[in-house]
């Protein structure tokens, strides 16, 4: 269907138009949203149409452009929509449209207003092209493109050194992951000879037994491929150990945090794993690595979120943690559950971020929760929507987060072997999750006001253009979960995505094992509720308790507050040596060798010229002498030759 092409092209057109307006002429300035917002909603409309069409009629395929033809290698750019892509399209366009709307209020008066919307359009375009790819090349290209847009948008307020540094950090850390990703793609090409999903999925299993020797070690080819591809996901989805960029990315405007670093770009990694699950499932070793990484990340990030004082950082670490859940699910073979959680998370995490943005906007830039409190009466809409988001995140039924998180936990438990371990990690993390999010709510909205008197005077609820998206997302946070009810016949998610993501029936319909289902559900709900109540105790009933605990266990507290010193470690081990090496290389190679060579040529030419100049003495007899010497030489040669 050709209207499919409009889905990514509308936001791209918005980018081009706004961009050109800035380039030629005075630009659109504060009217830029008149172009961007309709484009975003138009894209949403066409995504809905495409979704309905794919659900009823099957996948769409719309090749746009043949990009590369080299020997037997062909790669084209096109739009391929199947069930997985269709739900991703919905997610991306809905959140993008709401964020567009929200930004009209949040970014009002900003100097880079038009630039913001232009890059928003570019990002939306790139993300949409990423999910509609039908070959690894398009995937990779737009993978990089969303990374670029992330860089541009994090550094929106580029005069701030912290923002510029954060953007660079994001880009560089992603690069590390992308390096592995690229190697993985190269390896795929070498093994299969094509980058199209269909051919790769069909041909790669034939290489299942192959072994490749890397640096003296023998590795299974398919394991190597899967691990390399996973590196890309580790970078993009901020898993351990490449998670360090995501909290810093909070330097960007809050709508960006909501769109890119909660709902869409960071989920590209999870999407990639799900999309390429036929590759991953060829290697049990790789799947274990994926699951372990996800689980570790989930727990690890939750421990950090417990002590953070910047409200956006709490939500950022929460995102890392929830991404860990999704990755773990994919690694355990339950990618349907992973994607389900991706969808619900997109709704409530975006909601939480936009809610933070609303609070920040109301407090004229304050982000430290130690300076907040008692805001629930002043910011009612923000409060209620935030509360709903928190409930969803904590996994309290019947909100969305409960169904998706529970699905993951159940699958983990049932996946046998070490599955119980993963399940335990998931439950522990759920407890921590509930704790930190309600800590946030109580600190920000409840209790006595610790506001700075100046800001306290101007606190006001956000304008409708900001609160309407909040309400919409709150509704979604409640309802989206019902699409995946674990009751046979009512599980829409399973019906839509199951055949795609769990081929070969590796997904035992959970609905059939009711006996285990209810107790497990009960345990996860209990974990969430106890986390909530603990937070209530700590922050509402006995607010002095956290201080006492922090002073009693200072090492643990500091470990959590300082993000387990990861940044410091990287700085010491990687950043500084690299800088020193670069400095040394610059000095010896560039300055002393190349510059010397170039300058040397000039210097020597001048010196030579200075010497040669002596020949032109102006003295007739010098010239005559030289002529005679020449004659002498000629005669000598003549005599010798004769």
């Amino acid at each position, binding site marked *: 269907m050709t209207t499919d092409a409009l889905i990514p092209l509308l936001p791209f057109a918005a980018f081009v138009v706004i961009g050109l307006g800035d380039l030629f002429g005075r630009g659109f300035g504060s009217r830029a949203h008149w172009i961007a917002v309709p484009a975003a909603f138009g894209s949403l409309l066409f995504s809905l149409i495409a979704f309905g069409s794919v659900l009823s009629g099957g996948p769409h395929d719309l090749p746009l452009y043949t990009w590369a033809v080299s020997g037997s290698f062909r790669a084209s750019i096109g739009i391929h929509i199947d069930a997985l892509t269709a739900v991703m399209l919905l997610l991306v366009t809905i959140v993008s449209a709401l964020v567009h709307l929200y930004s009209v209020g949040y970014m009002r008066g900003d100097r880079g207003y038009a630039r913001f919307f232009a890059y928003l359009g570019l990002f939306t375009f790139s993300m949409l092209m990423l999910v509609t790819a039908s070959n690894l090349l398009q995937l990779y290209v737009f993978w990089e493109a969303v990374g670029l847009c992330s860089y541009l948008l994090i550094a929106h307020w580029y005069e701030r050194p912290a923002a510029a540094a954060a953007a660079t950090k994001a880009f560089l850390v992603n690069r590390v992951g992308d390096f592995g990703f690229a190697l993985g793609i190269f390896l795929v090409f070498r093994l299969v000879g094509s980058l199209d999903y269909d051919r790769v999925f069909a041909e790669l299993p034939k290489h299942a037994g192959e072994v490749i020797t890397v640096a003296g070690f023998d590795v299974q080819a398919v394991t190597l491929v899967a691990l390399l591809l996973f590196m890309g996901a580790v970078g993009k989805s901020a898993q351990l150990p490449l998670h360090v960029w995501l909290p810093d990315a909070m330097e960007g405007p809050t709508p960006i945090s909501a769109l890119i670093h909660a709902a869409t770009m960071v989920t590209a990694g999870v999407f990639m794993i799900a999309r390429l699950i036929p590759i991953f499932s060829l290697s049990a070793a790789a799947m274990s690595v994926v699951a372990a990484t996800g689980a570790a990340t989930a727990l690890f990030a939750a421990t950090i979120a417990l002590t953070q004082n910047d409200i956006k950082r709490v939500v950022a670490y929460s995102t890392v943690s929830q991404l860990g859940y999704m990755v773990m699910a994919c690694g355990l073979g339950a990618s349907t559950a992973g994607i389900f959680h991706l969808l619900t998370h997109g709704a409530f995490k975006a909601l939480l971020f936009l809610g933070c943005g609303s609070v920040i906007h109301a407090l004229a830039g304050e982000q430290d929760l130690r300076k907040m409190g008692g805001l629930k009466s002043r910011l009612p809409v923000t409060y209620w929507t935030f509360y709903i988001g928190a409930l969803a995140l904590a996994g309290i039924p019947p909100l969305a987060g409960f169904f998706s998180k529970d699905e993951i936990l159940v699958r983990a438990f049932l996946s046998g072997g070490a599955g119980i371990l993963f399940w335990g990690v998931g439950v522990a993390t759920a407890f921590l999750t509930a704790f930190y999010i309600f800590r946030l709510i109580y600190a920000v909205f409840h209790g006595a006001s610790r506001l700075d008197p100046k800001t306290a005077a101007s606190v006001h609820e956000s304008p409708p253009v900001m609160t309407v998206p909040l309400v919409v997302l709150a509704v979604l946070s409640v309802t989206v979960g019902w699409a995946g009810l674990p009751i046979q016949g009512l599980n829409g998610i399973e019906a839509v995505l199951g055949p795609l993501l769990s081929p070969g029936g590796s997904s035992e319909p959970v609905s059939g094992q009711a006996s285990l289902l209810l107790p497990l559900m009960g345990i996860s709900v209990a974990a969430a509720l106890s986390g909530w109540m603990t937070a209530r105790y700590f922050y509402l009933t006995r607010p002095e308790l956290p201080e006492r605990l922090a002073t009693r266990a200072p090492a643990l507290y500091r470990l959590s507050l300082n993000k387990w010193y990861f940044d410091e470690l990287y700085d010491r081990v990687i950043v500084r040596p690299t800088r020193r090496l670069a400095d040394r290389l610059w000095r010896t190679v560039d300055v002393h060798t190349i510059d010397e060579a170039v300058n040397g040529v000039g210097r020597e030419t001048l010196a030579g010229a200075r010497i040669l100049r002596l020949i032109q003495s102006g003295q007739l007899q*010098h010239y005559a002498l030289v002529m*005679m010497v020449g004659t002498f030489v000629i*005669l000598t040669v003549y005599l010798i030759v004769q």
Partner: protein
Amino acid sequence: MTTVLFSYFAGMIVLTAAGVVASRKPVNSALSLLVMFFHVAGLFVLLDAEFIAAVQIIVYAGAILVLYLFVVMLLNLRGEESYHTQYLVGLTIGLAILIEAVLVVSRSGFADRVPSDPAPAASLAGNTEGIGRALYTTYLFPFEVASMILLLAMIGAIILAKKGMFDR
């Protein structure tokens, strides 16, 4: 007989030539050159070229040298103090080339191809007449060109030496 005369003439020519180059005063150099011209004329007579000998004396000794002496007197030149700084190098080069020239000449086959017994003068029907015939027949064009050269030289000299021409 001719050998004796040759030796005398050759010796004097070399000595006076050295005198031209070595004399401190320009006047001495010019006079030394004059003597050399006479001896060269003598050598020419020895080689049965009487006309050339006469022309040598008339033109070189009588005109060119006189011109030199005019200029020397006109400019009232004193003698110079020393030779050029490169005189050692110059002498060395001269000597070196001389040795090489000797080698070249001795190696070349002059003796084989040239009869050492030249024909008597009579077969040349008089030197003057011979040269005159050659000049006005075979070498007519170069002869006319030579006269043009002389004309141009005269004009050139007048213009160059005229007072007030280049005094700006």
